[in-house]
């Protein structure tokens, strides 16, 4: 019995040895189901990176192995991550759209000797869960905090917050309240909406009744944002001059055509706009649009994936293709480069990305295409949420 087992193990070891010059990267994300669009953007970002940089780093081929977790499902995410490490022999884990999925997989990293590059999941605590986690996306705290300043600067002192009742929504609510209080503003009411809300009209009535001058909201990207914005306009709040503030999740580029006229003028803060004007971004967008097929589908997870691949390539360089998670992570601490979103740095201490946050407004270009127009830059923003992570 034991002998058989040893043989099986030996086989497993041999097979990974034989593939040594191909370095595998396991990417876990939602590639089917309701969030398939975001998974598609992961892939587009990664493909764009390959298109611009080739798939060799220092003589090693990089191969991506995709695994699908359609909806937040930590048990499945962990099982797949485990399978990627043990069976596929991946040296890097990456992707992770949802926080619980990322959290679940962090438990494996140390024993597996594998670094994890979070390409989206936006809860501050993930990087604290293991010293082998890096993040190339953003946190909800990071993108929310600046909008409080924007509101104050526009003379708004009374705000009502409406957020979806789940982790990121609650994060956004807390972040906004904290930041807005620091600015001297007042949050008159905080409402949490169930994720399954279809009809937002009654909530609009609540906004009206609260007497707030402005609204801060956080909703997951996708169908609810459309209904929410339409309800805001249809119920006369826009006409009444109530200011609308949100993070960029609400105006992600792939939702803009659906929002149409209703979205015009919405102000959001975010780390990336597809329209960002820089040579790096032009190259990236060209490659990513080609990779995704339909340019209208390109959205923010792609840039997180693209930069994630950059960090992974640097780690491969630093270790010469050998599996050594500690050395790899050490090598990219403090790493700075020009991302399609602007200048960024992997913070040496938190391993989270420091980046510019932009205030953008939805506008229409000459071809009638809607885009997020950057109008103000908050430079070198770290993650204010880290201070609140329970140890």
């Amino acid at each position, binding site marked *: 019995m034991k002998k058989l087992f040893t043989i099986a193990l030996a086989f497993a070891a041999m097979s990974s040895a034989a593939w040594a010059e191909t370095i595998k990267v396991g990417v876990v994300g939602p590639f089917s189901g*309701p969030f*398939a669009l975001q998974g*598609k953007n992961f892939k587009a970002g990664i493909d764009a990176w390959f298109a611009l940089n080739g798939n060799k780093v220092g003589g090693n081929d990089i191969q991506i192995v995709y695994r699908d977790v359609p909806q937040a499902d930590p048990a499945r995410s962990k099982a797949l991550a485990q399978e990627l490490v043990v069976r596929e022999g991946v040296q890097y884990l990456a992707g992770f759209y949802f926080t619980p999925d990322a959290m679940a997989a962090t438990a494996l990293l140390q024993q597996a000797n594998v670094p994890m590059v979070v390409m989206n999941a936006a809860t501050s605590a993930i990087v604290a869960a293991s010293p082998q986690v890096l993040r190339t996306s953003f946190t909800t705290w990071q993108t929310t905090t600046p909008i409080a300043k924007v509101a104050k600067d526009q003379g708004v002192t009374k705000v009502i917050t409406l957020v979806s009742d789940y982790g990121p929504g609650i994060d956004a609510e807390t972040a906004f309240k904290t930041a807005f209080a620091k600015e001297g503003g007042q949050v008159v009411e905080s409402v949490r909406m169930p994720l399954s*809300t*279809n*009809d937002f009209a009654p909530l609009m009535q609540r906004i009206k009744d609260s007497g707030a001058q402005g609204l801060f909201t956080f909703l997951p990207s996708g169908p609810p944002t459309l209904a929410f914005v339409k309800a805001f306009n249809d119920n006369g709040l826009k*006409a009444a001059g109530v200011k609308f503030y949100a993070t960029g999740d609400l105006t992600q580029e792939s939702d803009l*055509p*659906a929002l149409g006229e209703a979205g015009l003028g919405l102000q959001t803060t975010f780390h990336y706009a597809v329209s960002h004007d820089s040579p790096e971004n032009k190259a990236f967008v060209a490659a990513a649009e080609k990779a995704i097929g339909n340019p209208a589908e390109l959205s923010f997870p792609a840039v997180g994936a693209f930069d994630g691949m950059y960090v992974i390539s640097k780690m491969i360089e630093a270790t010469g293709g050998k599996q050594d998670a500690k050395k790899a992570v050490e090598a990219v601490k403090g790493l700075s480069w020009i991302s399609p979103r602007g200048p960024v740095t992997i913070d040496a201490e938190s391993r989270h990305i420091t980046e510019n946050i932009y205030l953008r407004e939805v506008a229409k270009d000459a071809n009638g295409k809607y885009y997020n127009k950057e109008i103000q830059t908050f430079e070198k923003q770290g993650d204010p949420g880290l201070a609140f992570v329970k140890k």
Partner: protein
Amino acid sequence: MQTVMSIAIDALAYGMVLFVISIGLSVTMGLMRVVNLAHGAFAMIGGYLASYAARDLGLGYAAGVLVAIIGTVIIAVPIERFLYRRIYGAPELTQVLMTIGITFCVIGITNFAFGPTLKTIPLPPSLQGSLDLGFRSIATHRIFAIASGLVVAALLWFLIEKTAFGIKIRAAVDNAAMTAALGVRTEIVYAVSFAVAIGLAALGGVLGAELLPVEPYYALRYMVTFLVVVSVGGAGSIPGALIASLLLGAIDTTGRYLAPEYGEFFFYLAVILIVTLFPRGLAGRLK
């Protein structure tokens, strides 16, 4: 008082949208006795077709609605002929398996063909904007949805209660073998009923698109809502579905206004209460 009025209007508008989308399911489940979990899939197909016709081909809203209804029915005909006909009268669980399978396929194919982004159906200028009621404003398309809902309810009631075809449907439901023996071709009755139900699904998908946006996962996302409406109303009953839609719309809307945090609890506790009190649906008691 204004707030109460305002909530009442929201409740009515939401309830009527629920009605328009769910009534087709009530027909398949009540009259044809099929647990049709693919109802949302057909509504979604309708939405996609309308979006394609109205937005991408620029045919306009009215044409979009027509294309949606006719197109969805055409797509549904072979599905009825080759798949549904095999599960009429089969155990509920078999029907669940088959219709979930169909839903998965539709989702996958839509995702492949149209991509995962939201699709909108551009409204004609007359339905855009909102109507000022003095104390509040209401979106014009919602008024349109309310009116359409009432028209659909009336037409359907007329079809089932007052026409020869309606008699055949009701007879076939009561006793298919006996009806067949009387010379009624039940498979045609079933096929036509199915087509009507699918047409209603497509119409609902289009009319409700402002509230329940069209995207590939639509087919599963709202399935539970439709099921709840139909069973609370009593499958197969038009007045039942109407009352259930309005009632659930009212509960949902009030719950979301008064205690949005606990809106889910509010809604489902109410469902449990209603279903326990009226196990055969609201219409089961009204008769």
